[in-house]
Every structure is written in C-alpha cells, then in structure tokens.
C-alpha cells in the first residue's frame, strides 16, 4: 500500500469572531499514531473536520502525501474518519451499512463482501452483524463506526474520540486494533483520556484555544516539564527534624516536604536541572544515615496537561 504522510501548515478557522483553530502546523508520518489532546473547545474536532475535508479552512494548507487539493473527492478515498458522537443510520442493518459505505468509497462490487467480512471479524461485530444499528449497544455502535472508517483500507485514519462509551475490555481491544493499524497507516486520534495517549500514541500534540502548546513524545514532554527533578527518599538514622533541615540546607535542593511521617519519607525538589541522587547519597554516607528508598518521581501526564492548558 502506498504511504501517505500528512502535513498541515498554518491552518486557521474561525466561526464568526471566534478563532477555533489559530495558525497551527504539524506533520504526521506514515506509521505514526498521533494523539490529539486538549480541553473541550480547544479546536481538536474543528481541526479533524478540516483534515477530512468536511470543513474548509480559512487559511493554510493540508498536504496529503504530495497532494494539497482543498476539496478533492479522490483524496477522500484515502481517508477513514470516525466523527465525534459517531453518527450512523439507525435504520440500517450492520452488514448493509458497511456495504453501503464501501461502495460509496469506491470499493469494487466484487471486493465488497470480502471487505465487509474482514471488518466484521476485525472489529468483533460477528454476533451483532444482522441487527439494525439502532438496536446496538454503545460499544457495538462504536465498533460499527470504526469498521466504516476502515472499510476501504485508507492510508490516513482520523478518529475523533474512538473509545468513548466502551467498557475497559473493549477499550483494550480497540487500542490494540489501532496500534496494529498504526504500523502501516497515518493515524490521528483525539481523546480526553490521558492514559489512552500513553498506551497508544507515538507522539502527542496538545492544543489549547486553537493553538499548539506542546508537540512531542510522552517522554519528551515529561522531560520538558521536569526541568527540576523530584525524588522520593526515605532516610532513617536521625530524628525527622534534623534530616529535614539538613536536606533543606543542601545547595542543590530547593524544597523539602515530609510526605509520610511514619516512614520518614520526604519529597525533595531540585534547584534547576541538577541531579540530586548523588548529593543525597553522599549526605547519607557522610552522616551515617540509612538510605532506605530513593525513587525519581515522574510527573504525571495529567500535570503536564494541566500546566499547559490552564491560563
């Protein structure tokens, strides 16, 4: 299958006076899964609607591989889209609906039955395939939405909140499916669920008020926000107040906090980008204290997200 990268350059879209998307640029390579994060109303859905050609941008260009046409029917055949709220024809049986979508996307009549069969199998729809879509539970509707997005084997996959309404087992299944698809396709998925991004995405993009506020791998973003190091340490061998004040007096340390009185556990923050581990180890050796625990504390993605999107 032909590979197709996505390149978005200075894309803008306003609704009246409100700027929904404000001059954003990014790239997604084939074989990459990009997680699109942001608070409600940040412009995620608007961006996705422009990528799928449902909305026309006010400014900017979207490159699909080497093509950049603003509204091209042929290009749409290379895109699979699961819209927010997953709208479906309730009165159609699952199989008919999938066949309908396949034929609209230009899958040849001879191939349609095998494509439909494959999607039913891949998305776990076998039990429900003869039912009307309106009779399905939310989880199964979501699978139908995913199946219709994949039916024509598109190079680009755009999924607006693909796991909403699924139970934990289904979420894991769908994530696995997306991961597997991501190996050969260009995937963009938006979500509110932060662990989902960590579990599925190679890269994340955080947008707020229509602008990109962060772009990188989860590990990279962590590093950026952790200009200071945070350690959890347990030290015994002296009374708490003594340990506390000695730690605080280290030149490398900016802040000490006693977080567990019974276990003598402290949270220590560094001053700037200094590694604290050695300093604390040497201090303990020098004083003859017992160092029971020394764990680097990871900033949670939630914290990064909050830092970047509040204000």
């Amino acid at each position, binding site marked *: 299958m032909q590979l197709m990268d996505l390149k978005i350059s200075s894309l803008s879209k306003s609704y009246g006076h409100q700027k929904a998307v404000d001059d954003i640029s990014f790239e997604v390579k084939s074989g990459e899964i990009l997680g699109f994060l942001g608070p409600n109303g940040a412009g995620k859905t608007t961006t996705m*609607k422009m990528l*799928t*050609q*449902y*909305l*026309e941008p006010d400014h900017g260009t979207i490159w699909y591989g080497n093509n950049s046409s603003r509204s091209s*029917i*042929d290009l*749409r*055949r290379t*895109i699979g*889209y699961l*819209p927010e*709220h997953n*709208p*479906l*024809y*309730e*009165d*159609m049986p699952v199989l*008919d609906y999938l066949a*309908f*979508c396949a*034929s*609209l*996307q*230009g899958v*040849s*009549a001879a191939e349609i039955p095998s494509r439909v069969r494959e999607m039913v199998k891949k998305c776990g729809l076998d039990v429900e395939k003869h039912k009307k879509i309106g009779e399905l539970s939310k989880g199964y509707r979501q699978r139908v939405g995913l199946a*219709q997005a994949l039916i024509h084997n598109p190079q680009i996959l755009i999924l607006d909140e693909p796991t909403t309404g699924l139970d934990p087992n289904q979420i894991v299944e769908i994530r696995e499916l997306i991961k597997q698809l991501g190996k050969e396709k260009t995937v963009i998925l938006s979500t509110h669920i932060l662990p989902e991004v960590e579990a599925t995405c190679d890269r994340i993009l955080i947008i707020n008020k229509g602008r990109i506020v962060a772009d990188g791998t989860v590990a990279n973003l962590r590093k950026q926000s952790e200009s200071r190091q945070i350690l959890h340490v347990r030290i015994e061998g002296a009374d708490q107040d003594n340990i506390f004040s000695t730690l605080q007096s280290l030149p490398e340390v900016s802040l000490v906090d006693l977080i567990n009185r019974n276990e003598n556990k402290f949270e220590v923050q560094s001053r700037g980008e200094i590694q604290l581990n050695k300093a604390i180890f040497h201090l303990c050796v020098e004083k003859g204290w017992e160092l029971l625990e020394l764990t680097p504390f990871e900033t949670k993605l939630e914290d990064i997200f909050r830092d970047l999107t509040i204000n």
Partner: protein
Amino acid sequence: MQSPVQIIAKRELNSFFDSLTAYIMLLAFLGFSGFFTWIYGADVFIRKEADLQVFFAIAKWTLFFFIPAITMKMIAEEKKTGTIELLLTKAVSHRQLVLGKYLACMLLVGIALIFTLPYYFSIARLGSVDHGATISGYLGLLLMSSAYIAIGLFASSLTNNQIVAFLLALLIGIFFHFLFDLFSGGTRGFLGNLMNDLSVSRHFESISRGVLDTKDLIYFASLTLLGLFMAEQLITKRK
C-alpha cells in the same frame, strides 16, 4: 462501479420501504385518488367521459401534500443526526448527494403512478380513451412532482427540523400551486402575466390537456434545477 448518486438513491429507496413510509404513502395516494376517481363526487361515471381528467386533478392535489412528507427528512434528518458528515467525508460531492435524494423521491412517486395504471386500463375498456392526453397527463404529474421534490429538498436543507421542512415546503408550494394562479386573475398587465407564468397549475393544466409546449417543459425543468441548486448551495454553506 455504481455512481454515488445511484448508491444514495438505492439506500433512500430501501429506507422508504424498510420504514412504513413508502407503504403508507402508496396506500393513501391510491386510496384518495381511487376514491375520487371512481366512487365519489364528479367521478368518471357521472362525467360519462372515458378519460383520466378526474384522476389527474385529484393526483395533482394529493401529490402536492405527499411530496413534502417524503422530502422533509431527506436532508434535515441527516443534518440533525450528523450522518451528513459521514456522507460528505466520503467520496461523494454535494451535488451527487442532492441528486441521489432527488432520484429516490422521483422513483417513489414513479412507483405510485405505476400503481394507478389499472385505472387507465379500466377506462380504456369502458370507452375510447385519448391515449395522447393520458400520456401527457402522466408526464405532467411527473414534471410537477419533480418541481415539488426540488422545492421540498430545498426546504429540507434549510433546517434540521423535519416538521419545519414540511411546513416550509408546503408554504413555498402553495404559491406555485394555487396563489400565483389566484393573483393572476386579479392583476393585469405584466404582473398578471408573470403570475400566470409562475403558476404550476397553469403549466400543469396545459400539459394535461395534451398540449406539449416547450415553454412548460422549460418551466418545470428550471424550477427543478433551481430548487436542487439552492439545496446544494445550502449544504455547501456550512463550510
């Protein structure tokens, strides 16, 4: 490979018959027109003429009410549920979407009219029928339906509320069906002629009398194209 217009029309037609819409419409249409053609009022037996003029006059009114009922959900419903986004992000143009819906409605009206052919065969046995006038009568009904379907689709693309779409289609329709004709009687000169030219009824009557004038054909074709074009523009406008 099927064209998107055909695929959409096929889906719509299936959905007419899956829900009860199509059956109710066919039953009501045949019931009304049959009742007034054969049983009640100035029916065929009272007129004692072997023609279908009674049927055409009744069908003109029944279709006037039924067409908005079948077109009302066409675009309004897609907009309300968001399925229009699914369609338009697939390999379908706005024009193909509107044409597909139009074709489905035309086919449903066509099926309804085919079911009235027994009327024609019955009357042909009763006396000598003017075959030309019958054919042009049916043609008149089809052309009129085509114009009203286009108006109905336009109304449906204006709103995402089906009832509003229905009433709007009737409101626009009543001018063409009835009011322009009425006004033209009371006005003289240019305005009177204009009203006369705009009236669906005038053009329909001239066709159903058996006179096939290009003026009438052009009239119905332009009304259809205008309605479909405006519907297409309204769907495009969301961008």
